[in-house]
């Protein structure tokens, strides 16, 4: 009996080896990419986890300190708690809103004639690829009377005195959310447009015969289920970006921002990683962020799989 199992195992190995030999060219072709991918993505995730249990400042060799970094992070670092809170607020608002907006606009655009559709696609998409053009919001939300927002609101009598949009903690997060939403119609928006264009038109005819009465039913029972793959892809993109907000906050609200109101997990990471050079601590921040991102993605994926069921 054992001998039979053994030979079976052996032959399985043989099959595998044969397959590997057969697809030698495949491994050759994928090697360059995956060597780089492992070096700059896979290995770093584990390194980050390892470094997070140490004290490391690049100059000295890392010292193992167990969970100290994590304990300090959650129990002793008020700024991190603020950063965590801000990150979650930003993600919970900009994530779903930008996701729904990307879908809604893609859906509305889909009804237009091709030329107009192309134009609207450009208009909605380009903020996300326009580099640092978001700096114009510094003028729009400038704290003096010349800022467009202040000037308009004062002209129409909503305000008597200019608001310090970028320095007053009351307004900083909302401003950041607005700018981030402006930037947010990116890759997922394109995926939705493509997905909508590809829904088989005969499905709608069949649906009408089967008693679908209005646009909303059409959307829920036909469009969304056929687009589920794009919806999943879009969700991944939106979740990942909405949890990684940092650049816009640094450029618009300053670094550090007033009362850390614009501080996020990523800016905290930048602070410890590139300014204080406490790489162990920064890695602990990165690891926490990693698990938040993966967790959020897996959770949302689970929910989205139920769409239209």
């Amino acid at each position, binding site marked *: 009996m054992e001998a039979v199992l053994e030979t079976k195992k052996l032959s399985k190995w043989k099959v595998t080896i044969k397959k590997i030999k057969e697809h030698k060219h495949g491994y050759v072709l994928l090697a360059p*990419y995956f060597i780089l991918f492992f*070096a700059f*993505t896979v290995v770093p995730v584990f390194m980050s986890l390892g470094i997070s249990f140490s004290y490391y400042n690049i100059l000295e060799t890392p010292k193992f300190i167990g969970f100290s970094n994590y304990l300090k992070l959650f129990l002793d670092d008020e700024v991190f708690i603020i950063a965590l809170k801000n990150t979650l607020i930003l993600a919970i608002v900009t994530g779903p809103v930008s996701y729904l907006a990307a879908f809604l606009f893609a859906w509305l*655009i889909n009804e237009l004639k091709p030329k107009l559709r192309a134009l609207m696609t450009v208009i909605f998409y380009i903020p996300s690829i*326009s*580099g640092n053009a978001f*700096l114009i919001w510094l003028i729009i939300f400038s704290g003096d009377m010349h800022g467009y927002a202040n000037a308009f609101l004062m002209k129409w009598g909503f305000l008597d005195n200019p608001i310090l949009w970028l320095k007053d903690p009351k307004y900083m997060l909302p401003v950041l959310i607005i700018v981030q939403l402006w930037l947010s119609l990116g890759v997922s928006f*394109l995926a939705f447009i493509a997905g909508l264009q590809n829904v088989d038109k005969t499905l709608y005819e069949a649906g009408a015969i089967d008693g679908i009465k209005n646009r909303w*039913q059409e959307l829920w029972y036909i469009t969304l289920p056929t687009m589920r793959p794009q919806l999943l892809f879009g969700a991944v993109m939106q979740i990942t970006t909405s949890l990684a907000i940092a650049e816009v906050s640094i450029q618009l609200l300053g670094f550090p921002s007033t009362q850390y109101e614009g501080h996020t997990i990523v800016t905290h990471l930048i602070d410890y990683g590139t300014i204080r050079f406490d790489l162990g601590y920064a890695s602990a921040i990165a690891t926490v962020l990693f698990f938040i*991102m993966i967790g959020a993605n897996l959770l949302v994926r689970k929910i989205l799989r139920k769409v239209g069921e």
Partner: protein
Amino acid sequence: MILKLKNRWQEFLLKRKIKKEHRVNRSKYSNIFLILVLVIFGAFSAYPLIMTASNAFKPLDELFLFPPRIFPRNVTFDNFRDLSELMAGSWIPFSRYFFNTIFITLLGTVGHVLIASMAAYPIAKYDFPGKKLLFALVVYSLMFAPQVTAIPNYIIISSIGLIDTPLAIILPAIASSIGFYLMKQFMEQIPMELIESAKIDGASEYRIFFTIVMPLVKPAWLTLVILLFQRLWVTDGGALLFSEELKPLSYALRQVATGSIERSGTVAAVSFIMMIVPIIFFVISQSKIVETFTHSGMK
């Protein structure tokens, strides 16, 4: 005769009814609502970019005018001239920064399209040990932002001696996972018969990849190009490039741009230069890029 006409008319009505039934309930009100929504949010989306472009061509006295003019009355290139003067003041010539950015962007983009496609082809079209695991790793990597791995990346790059070389920026960019992911999804629709028949004709796998597969996935190239382009074009080198003569354009422009509101015109000129290149590229290649995303879906 009349009967015939009547019949035809009824037929026509019936046809129209069927045609109307194709799509359910599209009332006039919802169309007006649709247009209204698109106009309002389209304006929200476009206004800041339009103002950036127009500010770049405004003389100083018009910059602070209220209400802000969308079309400058006296179009001027002063802001660009100021910019080049500021740049001339630095000890590295402007052209050097420009060259650095072009070099990084070009090499990174071409390298990414080539290397990511090479890896995408076997994963999309063949079944071999390890394939599922490799693809799963890429999908997981889409779920976290690159900031997570920034520190180990720095350590790895410095340990292989690439710190302060353009490769420190280029190599991680080549390994970008979204481009690989999209390319693999796009390649899946290539019919296997095509590859098989080429094989029967005696073409080697490498030959098939370069002469059959690569030309077929041209729309996806453009997508990979724009995704990587927008990332590399604005890179400022961060901690990975510290020699002044290796710094990219974005870094130099930011040095000029930081400052108070008096520099607004220069900032607008800088932003305009940085944004116009990716935008033009997207406008030209839009339809091909959207086509690629048809296959972006996840299971």
